């Protein structure tokens, strides 16, 4: 009987363990080993930290690395600032059909692929695009305006892509806040700002942090949006990884870059949790 139960447990766990080991654990270990390899001759390798040293000694790599981090943090903050009022409206003010309709509107853009969505932005923002034409039509601009291929365009794309992942956790946590508690906040003399600061935000903190983590990770690891909307000066770290692997065929350096990105995102998420006094269990559970 006991051995049967044990067998059952093993059978149940097998798909999960296969998934974890084959798709996550083994590739990562392999990638880590590759990143520690230095090519000394044809088919000859030795273990060294040379790839990581290259990263430190090359200003372009380091610069892109930090720029990607700062831009991702900025994109996360902008997403939060836009998503919070939207989520508050959906969760607390809208009722019944309006509520589900608004929620659906946030979801609709995700029915098409990210590639198509990004092309949509290109149609809007390019020199011959809708906005440029509109500005000329209204007489606000003399000639065609190019709004693509800069950091602002990347930011717009990143925020747009991440919106849903911020709205969902926020709506969920805000909905769990009883209206009574908000009313009590007002009843006892609070104004809108103090109720927001002392009651709504502390209650929504786990949702805010989990939304921020997801959005930050998505922005940091985004490849498509920065490549398509960014210009020659707006290099994203994922582009460097891509070029090492595919263009330069330098897997060793690419793997090192990949691990640096993993380390960076882990560090920033950890810092974010420490800063807000939240724990991963609380925000993800």
């Amino acid at each position: 009987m006991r051995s049967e139960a044990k067998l059952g447990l093993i059978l149940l766990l097998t798909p999960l363990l296969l998934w974890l080991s084959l798709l996550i654990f083994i590739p990562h270990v392999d990638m880590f080993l590759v990143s520690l390899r230095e090519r000394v001759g044809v088919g000859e390798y030795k273990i060294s930290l040379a790839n990581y040293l290259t990263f430190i000694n090359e200003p372009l790599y380091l610069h892109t690395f930090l720029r990607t981090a700062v831009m991702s943090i900025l994109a996360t903050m902008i997403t939060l600032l836009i998503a919070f009022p939207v989520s508050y409206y959906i969760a607390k003010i809208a009722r019944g059909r309006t509520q589900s309709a608004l929620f659906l509107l946030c979801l609709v853009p995700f029915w098409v692929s990210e590639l198509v969505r990004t092309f949509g932005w290109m149609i809007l923002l390019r020199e011959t695009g809708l906005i440029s034409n509109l500005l000329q039509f209204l007489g606000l601009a003399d000639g065609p305006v190019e709004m693509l291929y800069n950091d602002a365009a990347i930011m717009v794309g990143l925020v747009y892509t991440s919106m849903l992942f911020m709205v969902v956790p926020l709506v969920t946590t805000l909905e769990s806040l009883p209206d009574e508690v908000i009313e009590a906040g007002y009843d006892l003399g609070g104004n809108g700002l103090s109720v927001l600061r002392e009651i709504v935000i502390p209650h929504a903190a786990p949702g805010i942090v989990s939304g921020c983590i997801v959005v930050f990770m998505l922005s940091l690891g985004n490849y498509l949006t920065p490549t398509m909307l960014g210009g020659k000066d707006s290099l994203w770290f994922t582009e460097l990884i891509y070029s090492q692997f595919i263009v330069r065929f330098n897997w060793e350096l690419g793997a090192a870059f990949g691990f640096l990105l993993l380390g960076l995102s882990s560090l920033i998420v950890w810092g974010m949790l420490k800063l807000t006094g939240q724990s991963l269990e609380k925000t993800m559970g």
Partner: protein
Amino acid sequence: MYPDLECMNLTRRFGDTVAVDDVSFTVPAGSFFSILGPSGCGKTTIMRMIAGFLEPSSGDIHIRGRSVIDTPPNKRPVNMVFQHLALFPMMNIADNIGYGLRRAGVSKPEIEKKVEEALDRIGLPGIGARKVGELSGGQKQRVAIARCMVLEPEVLLLDEPLGALDLKLRERMKVELKALQAAFDTTFVYITHDQSEALVMSDRIAVMNEGRFEQVGSGQDLYYRPDTAFVAGFVGDANRWSGRIERVSGDEMEMRTDSGILMRGATHGRALSAGDRADVFVRPEAIRIAHSTEELAHFDNRITGKVESILFNGAASRILVQDSAGSGEIEVNLPQSGEFSGLSRGSEVQIGWSGAQGNCFAAEGS
């Protein structure tokens, strides 16, 4: 001297439905006023209008003689204890109680002192650092009241705060609430659908039905001298007979019930005349029970019946009597003397009551 709270012709409509229909009342300073009514009668709507969360469609609300209609909820000198208490789960107890004082800009040491005092007052000293979730239902209740009382409101509104408690605790909190009201010497406006809460605690009670006040008075008034059939049926238990009036003389009347029994009752000054449809209400404790008719000779209503069932409930035990005419069950209180402990299902009993105990009202819709 103005009354603490005065509502004048308060009306609130939601679309086509009138939730509160032209209600006026005054609550004198320092009194315990209850609004009693079934759910959906509009009592919560009144409460939310007083607190400022709802705007009246028409009418005015005065607190200490000043209209507060244009004052937002956070500026009104009223505070509310919510149905589910609405303590702030993200703060500890001391911060919960100190919240209003912080908003009012009171200095930190002053807040600490007042919070301490309030905790002493509610008999829970030293729990300031605890989390909301660590308290029992009764303790939360008291904290919710203390959180309002530190602000020294003119009027404290309580929205069925005992609803979520279990029966034993509810009984104890009734007494405690009354004591707290006396200790803080503040006007309490309490809404409930539980008549015993209202009767035990209140100085005055308003019985509300379908957006209107049926009667305002002390607990005794409502219980012994109900003004309307609704109050007679809603406050306390009552046996009810419908029928047609045969004769009215002065305060006395005679009615033939639909099942054919001739019954005497009292009109208590209500305008009723022979031929009208009417309802007679008789309280179970007003009905005397006896083994023989002679014992009941002085009562003008006498019925012979069979015990249908015995509802044992300690001091509040009752029997259901099926009268010989078969007009339905009559609830009768069982005396505690033990004299009728031998009754069993099917025994024949005599019951009777004096006509003055039969409260007669014109039937609804007539």
